[in-house]
């Protein structure tokens, strides 16, 4: 029987969103346009148009050992060119941001090749070869996984995911990397992800409204959203996993 990923349990919109985002066969809804140049500016790893710095020569130019694994695994574009490994890091507000840290890591692992996601409570980083990263980052920012007000692109000083929102609905950012232009209802990044001022503003779109956020979020939250308690199937599944792990800590002979 062929393996069919189930992605996760749950009978709620939150659970359904989690499954959708993880499932590569689900095409992520594009919500905003963002240019390649703007993505490069936001991340701040290289100047737009500059050549990709490399960590090693292109694979075609270096002597590869006779290795069966190398024959099995096709290199990504970035690996082929010898790109260095760089990152993008997100902070997701617990007030119904669409993506949340573990979900991000899971969906990136399902959808992208050659990635190294890292998951914390207040941030989630994904590292990979630079030109692959730019492609992935563009999807992460331009689709339903991102909300300009509740999702932050933050390399350092990420503080904000659990804080009350600012009076304009934006997630707190100590460095104020992005601001809400109230006139045009548009979020603009004025600093890159590690807080260096940008020469030009990068517009990442209008904040999504509450209805949209709650329809797209992947966090359970009893204040205005779906309480975890209300997803009985999900809780039962977690209990089952825990019980089985506990039991097999004993390595029973059955």
């Amino acid at each position, binding site marked *: 029987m062929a393996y069919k990923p189930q992605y996760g349990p749950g009978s709620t919109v939150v659970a359904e969103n*989690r499954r959708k985002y993880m499932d590569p066969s689900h095409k992520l809804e594009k919500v905003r346009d963002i240019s390649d140049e703007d993505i490069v500016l936001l991340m701040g790893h290289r100047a737009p148009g500059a050549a990709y710095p490399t960590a090693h020569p292109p694979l075609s130019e270096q002597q590869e050992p006779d290795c069966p694994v190398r024959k099995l695994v096709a290199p990504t574009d970035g690996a082929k060119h010898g790109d260095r490994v760089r990152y993008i890091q997100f902070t997701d507000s*617990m*007030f119904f941001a669409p993506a*949340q*840290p*573990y*979900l991000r890591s899971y969906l990136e692992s399902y959808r992208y090749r050659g990635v190294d996601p*890292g*998951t*914390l*409570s*207040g941030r989630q980083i994904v590292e990979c070869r630079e030109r692959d990263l730019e492609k992935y980052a563009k999807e992460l920012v331009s689709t339903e996984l991102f909300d300009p007000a509740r999702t932050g692109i933050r390399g350092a*000083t990420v*503080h904000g*995911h*659990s*804080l*009350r*929102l*600012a*009076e304009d*609905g934006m997630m*707190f950012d*100590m*460095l104020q990397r992005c601001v809400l232009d109230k006139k045009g209802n548009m979020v603009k990044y004025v600093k890159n992800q590690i*807080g260096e001022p940008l020469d030009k503003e990068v517009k990442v779109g209008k904040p999504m409204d509450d209805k949209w956020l709650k329809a797209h979020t*992947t*966090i*359970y*939250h*009893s*204040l205005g959203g779906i*309480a*975890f*308690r*209300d997803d009985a199937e*999900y*809780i039962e599944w*977690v*209990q089952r*996993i*825990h*019980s089985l*792990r*506990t*039991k*097999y*800590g*004993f390595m029973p002979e059955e």
Partner: protein
Amino acid sequence: MAKAKIERTQKLFLKALKGKFKEDPQSTSVVYAREGLKQSPRKREFLESGKKMEMARGISMYDPVRCHLGGIPLGQRQLMTYEVSTTGVFVEGDDLHFVNNAAMQQMWDDIRRTIIVNMDLAHQTLQKRLGKEVTPETINEYLHVLNHAMPGAAVVQEHMVETHPGLVDDCYVKVFTGDDEMVDDLEPQFVINVEKLFPAKQAAQLKAAVGKSMWQAIHIPTIVSRTCDGGTTSRWSAMQLGMSFIGAYRMCAGEAAVADLAFAAKHAGVIQMADILPARRARGPNEPGGIKFGHFADMVQADRKYPHDPARASLEVVGAGTMLFDQIWLGSYMSGGVGFTQYATAAYTDNILDEYTYYGMDYIKQKYKVDWQNPNEKDKVKPTQDVVNDITTEVALNGMEQYEQFPTLMEDHFGGSQRAGVLAAACGLSCSIATGNSNAGLNGWYLCMLLHKEGWSRLGFFGYDLQDQCGSANSLAIRPDEGAVGELRGPNYPNYAMNVGHQGEYAAIVGGAHYGRGDAWSLNPLIKITFADPSLKFDFAEPRREFAKGAIREFMPAGERSLIIPAR
């Protein structure tokens, strides 16, 4: 929304939230004033002091306006104060860093400088080998000599240097025994009186455990253990013990029997507070990484003072344990820096963990009829997987919902590791107090971690990926390579060795299992009795109150040096 399974209108954290934030605790938005450092009196003091120090030493130092994030200082949101739980005392976060808190330093000093040494072996040597008489009178005389010698005074020799009594006044020795007649015959100044210090039921258990044997609770000078290390304690003590026996019992200083006394004092009759660690940790005995959780639960004395509140007793262990294991052990011995304080304080400030734990108490009382305010072994629930799953799920969901319903509470515990430790501690304590089984408590901890992670799609820092997501599999295993009963685990247990936000709570979960049963001790009655001593500088029955006193600069520690330095 489905409701919590029990009603609990009392929210212990509300007073703190109202004191900390001027907005409604349930507000979801706020105007971030970005007032910077000057909003905090303590930071203002630091700025002023930093300037003075800079001028005095001619080298730059505290300069946050320039050095923090290239010109953006701390305080872009409100720099919160914290109420040390149950004390009503609000303090600045800075005051809970152990460098800024003399009570915290003294708590660890008092553990590191303590050693327990058996007297029976020495008495047998004196009586059987040397034919000397040992009576209450000779023991009193010996203790008088010992309390002269232990701080660093000469007993037998001529022309010896000695320590200044004003520098070592915290050093002394008392004895304890389960023999009431002997206690009556000894001078009260030298005795830890179990009968008087413990509730009757606990005293009876402890006296039965100790029997007629006699033990010395020794505290060497704080200044010595600070200058040297925990491994010094048994050596310093053994030297002074040997000399005191020689002096008090008129022995020959060089006779072979002295070797027996020395062997008893250094090895055969010694209880260290902490085991020696493997070479890669490079720590001797009596250093924090070697303290077994069961022993730590015995050091903290809140169950003696609050025998009818096992939750309170356990929460005091959490406070003491997170301070020692997170702030001092992991935060400084093992890692360095200042960040660990923020993790640890979440567990003993603002009554948040207290609220979640008492919710668990209400739940186990209502559903399982556990009379937790009358600790006993008879009404404990059988620690089945179903029971652990049920208690944990309810306590974890309640805690998560409190964070959600009170956004200022979430803002208070702004880091996932803080929330993870606090939620799991409430679950672990509820399970261990309900069942009287520490490993059931640990198992509840790990289910909570999984629930938390799935509910919010986040947990703590990277470290939680290891310990907490594989913890289910080792929490009930008792084979040594996979696990051990909680009492015998410690900060250097394989999966626990590098993870902040856990160890103090684990110690409390272990303690909770025994406090909930009404046991007089968790792992070692001798340690329980030793730290009941009211002459200790730090009051181990009230660690959180002591920390609060330290924070507001009202705690007087040992380790005086003003006698030997220029006056300011």
